[in-house]
């Protein structure tokens, strides 16, 4: 797990989805100025009220697991982890419900079904999910099981 996102910019295709404030890593979304609906990722269109005037907003970094699965087979392209069928590592995927109620789809740091339960607290982090052909690591955002006190 990495915390220094600035040094990873070239390897972090999701950098534009993230904020790096004084309180640490967070997700960026947008909020409709007309009806207040919140979106992740940020969008210029509100599908609730059909408006198109939205402002950037902070989605946060802590939430609760809303649903989960384990990706047990290697996805086809455009998946680009660089793994092969023989060395593919299954990974957890879930929706995490954030304080606004928005659910964010994300990789999870564990693929162990016994370690995952709907409702458990989760915290945002960065993970290495693969490497490019030139050997440089690829990172993305993920959620990790967190302590109850963190929420």
């Amino acid at each position, binding site marked *: 797990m990495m915390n220094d996102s600035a040094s990873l910019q070239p390897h972090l*295709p*999701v950098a534009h*989805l993230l904020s790096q404030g004084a309180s640490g890593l967070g997700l960026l*979304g947008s909020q409709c100025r007309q009806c207040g*609906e*919140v*979106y*992740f*990722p940020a969008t210029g269109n509100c*599908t*609730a009220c059909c408006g198109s005037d939205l402002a950037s907003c902070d989605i946060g970094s802590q939430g609760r697991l*809303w*649903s*989960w*699965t*384990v*990706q*047990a*087979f290697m*996805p*086809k*392209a*455009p*998946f*680009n*982890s660089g793994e092969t069928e023989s060395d593919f590592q299954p*990974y957890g*995927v*879930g*929706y995490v419900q954030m304080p*606004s*109620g*928005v*659910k*964010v*789809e*994300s*990789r999870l740091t564990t693929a162990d*079904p016994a370690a995952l339960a*709907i409702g458990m607290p989760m915290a945002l982090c960065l993970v290495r*999910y693969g490497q490019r052909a030139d050997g440089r690591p*690829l990172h*993305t955002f993920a959620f990790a099981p967190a302590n109850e006190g963190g929420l």
Partner: protein
Amino acid sequence: MEDIAIIGIGMHPFGRTDGLSGQAQGAFAVREALRDAGVNWNQVGVAYGGSQDAGNADALANHLGLTGIPFVNVANGCATGGSALASVVAAIRSGMAEIGVAVGFDKHPRGAFNPRPADWGLEDWYGETGLMLTTQFFALKTQRYLYEHGIPEESLVRVAQRAFRNGALNPQAWRRRELSFDEIAESMPVNLPLRKYMFCNPAEGGAALVLCRASQAHKYTDSPIIVRAAVMRTRHHGSFEVFSPGLAARQAPAPTATASRAAYEIAGVGPEDIDVIQLQDTDSGSEIIHLAENGFCEHGEQGLLLRNGTTDIGGRLPVNTDGGCLANGEPVGASGLRQVIEACTQLRQQAGARQVPGAPRLGYTHVYGAPGVSAVTILEAP
């Protein structure tokens, strides 16, 4: 509103047919449907159809004959067949033509679908980091649904077990081997809670219908099937749909629920009147969700209905009598019309070993798919 009737049904068997293009399978299905109706292609005045991966439907005219008719290409994902049918019904009702054809066909590569993010208005990272898979979506939706409504995971096994049991009775099914409870429950995890035998496979095949005004139908057939409703709907804000990097805070009813309600209203019947049911079962979890979304039970009742045989061929709610997508595979463009053809076959009482007893009068079909579309038909026996 004037009634429209299905006077001919035809299929190219689903599965894998190496050496035969998807379009050739679509043309085969149209010829079968024309033969069933006893009409020639040059009597057809309008056609709608489509595929996802096998090209344009109007290219079928190169196989069937270049008669100059309006042949409209439909591209509505899993609802392609349902949209084609609804369009033909409207066209005939408007007086545009006396006889119309609806056709769907497809030929998908082996393995899971691998959509391109840009085609769905999404950024590349979503596919590159491994989040853009239909199987993943179905698993996430199923996991949440089972949790919210207290449905046991064994229900997922029972859906698949019934699908393969019915498939074994269907001479046209792709998968014709019954599977035991344990074989399904212990099969390889694909996306938990869903396992190998709980998912259908992308496949190949063709399905076609010939339609005309009900008042004219007896010129062509002794057993016309009346289309009481053919409805297609898209998603509302807040419904839980495939390829969603984020979901809204509020939850809205799925497009299935809105299409279903509209169909019942148009047909003037309710779920309690339906005698034979075909529901989208890309996976076991989806069928469980769709049983309730189409009004056949309350959310959470499915565990009991599946355990006590209510959804079996001899039960009160016979579901997916031909084995559904699980036993037939899913050629996306053709799948919805396969359901309509199975309903017609049951209503004509020509379903052989899988025939629903007691002369079923009303049939119901339902498809659902990306990016949040659903099509429902309600059909009535001659």
